[in-house]
């Protein structure tokens, strides 16, 4: 039940090393450690698969995602339609494949937006401290506790339904967790000796912040971002389920499940398959993120 005492010294040096100056042997070791983590590899495979499916949809999908075939409604999964058809006779498999594009788009763009915003605000808060820190943290706290669905709904009310709502909603709520993470990291690192050393060599705030502190502090943020992509995809699906995300005939996974609800008892596969696709996708991102935690030996990815 107890962790063994560390008699062997940490090879990278005690405390938090400056990773920008890591020897290349260390990098290779990290790579090997990552590939040894089977779950993480599975995660990466899933992610690559997702991106592949999204890019190659035109070649992979057997049918068009919007062509209706009213004589072929509610067909159960068969050799012709591996995932069956929906209430308009559209091939579910093709729709799922094309749907991955929306998910990837939303996931990446929204997380990218919130990470950039969060990094910026968080670094400033952590580095300068004082009342700036105080003010920014309070704002971050409030933002973080908002359910993203509510923000998304609000945005829908204002700008109308669509994928942009989702992206904005995620961007506007999720930045807070990245800000907190990077702030915590910077607070921890800015007192490290090498920062003092760099400053005494004449570097200004900007250089210290962006060339040294940020690369070292970014670990937990990367992990949170990978998991964030998963969260973004789920949110898109949720909004789609409420009819507020990507609009028909775009095959958003959430929208598919939404229209499928009415036919839950007749053709459950319309709900099951998009849901499975989403689950596997999010699982992939989460596994990858977890493996990163292990490899980079990050202690704290919770935002407290």
């Amino acid at each position, binding site marked *: *039940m*107890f962790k*063994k*005492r560390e*008699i*062997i*010294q940490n090879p990278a040096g005690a405390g938090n090393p400056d990773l920008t100056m890591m020897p290349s042997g260390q990098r290779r070791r990290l790579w090997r450690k990552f590939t040894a983590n089977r779950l993480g590899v599975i995660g990466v495979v899933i992610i690559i698969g997702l991106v592949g499916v999204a890019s190659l949809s035109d070649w992979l999908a057997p049918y068009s995602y919007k062509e209706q075939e009213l004589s072929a409604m509610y067909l159960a999964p068969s050799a012709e339609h591996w995932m069956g058809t929906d209430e308009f006779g559209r091939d579910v498999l093709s729709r799922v494949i094309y749907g991955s594009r929306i998910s990837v788009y939303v996931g990446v763009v929204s997380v990218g937006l919130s990470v950039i915003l969060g990094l910026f605000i968080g670094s400033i808060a952590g580095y300068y401290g004082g009342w700036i820190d105080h003010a920014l943290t309070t704002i971050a706290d409030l933002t973080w506790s908002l359910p993203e669905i509510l923000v998304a709904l609000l945005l829908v009310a204002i700008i109308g339904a669509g994928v942009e709502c989702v992206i904005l909603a995620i961007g506007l709520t999720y930045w807070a967790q990245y800000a907190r993470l990077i702030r915590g990291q910077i607070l921890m690192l800015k007192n490290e000796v090498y920062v003092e050393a760099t400053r005494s060599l004449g570097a200004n705030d900007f250089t210290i912040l962006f060339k040294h502190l940020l690369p070292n502090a970014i670990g937990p943020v990367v992990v949170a971002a990978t998991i964030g992509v998963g969260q973004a995809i789920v949110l898109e699906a949720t909004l789609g389920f409420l009819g507020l995300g990507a609009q028909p005939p775009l095959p958003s996974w959430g929208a598919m499940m939404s229209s499928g609800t009415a036919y839950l008892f007749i053709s459950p596969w319309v709900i099951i398959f998009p849901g499975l696709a989403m689950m596997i996708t999010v699982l992939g991102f989460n596994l990858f993120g977890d493996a990163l935690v292990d490899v980079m030996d990050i202690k704290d990815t919770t935002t407290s």
Partner: protein
Amino acid sequence: MPLLQVESLRVRFKMEEGYVEPLDGVSFEIEPGEVMGLVGETGSGKSVTAQAIMGLLPFINGEVTEGRIIFMGKDLLSFSEEQWQKYRGAKLSLISQNPMTSLDPVYRVGDQIVEGMLLHLNISRSEARQQAMDLMASLHIPNPAGVYYQYPHQLSGGLKQRIVIAMGLCAGPNLLIADEPTTALDVTVQAQIIALFKEAAIQRGIGLLLITHDLGVIAQICDKVAIMYAGTVVEFGDVVSIFNNPRHFYTKALLQCVPKLGMQKGILRAIPGNVPSVQTFPDGCRFHPRCSGVEPICRLQKPANIHLENGINVACVKYASHLKGSA
């Protein structure tokens, strides 16, 4: 009868890559009321020795492979966990290195002292509280009644360490093991704490095993000293005798390293080479690569622990002649 007898102790730990043996050949004795210093550099195995004596090795993936530990006549290595729980804290106590991290941050310090008392003594909570405050007062903690209700983060390092000492003494142990009790403190506070220890040992007649890397502290309050290097006790015996006339080459080198007031300015002495890590302990005598008096046999054979007439033990082949025909 000695309070504590450690004989030829050998300890190993299970690590990811296999086993390591941080201790091999640790022997010393403490009489009741005696203060013994265990001195060595970082990595010499001092803390592991303390953990072994307290029976804490199983919790950190360690085990004793050879040797004996006799405490008040009882063989500690044969103890079950139940027996251990009756002895730990009650008959022998451990005070550890870093007072900052030795206390549970969510409980008041007074309650943490009382916890041990309620566990081992048959008294009521209010009696325990009173005794705890008396104990705190005797350790020169100002305003014991107030400090009792504080949380660890509200106290200074010196105060925290006194609380930790109080926790060690609260159930009236016969042996107190203090693992580097002053390393994390300011120099001025260090002196106070050391004096406290001596006072406590004399007042209560308990045995004190003081682990440190500071020779000055040893000289101040210890009756006996065991010099440790790379998991072995290389010399053991009366403090005055050893400091004045060190036998083992390591002891000699160690004492020479300490600068003294009034000595000539010049090169600071250091022992050539580095302390080996636990995975790279040399064969034979573990000190031989750095020893100024090394002989060919030192590379091959671990020296036996030799008892000299004046009560000093030394683990060096140079004194092997004393083995023939001596007790």
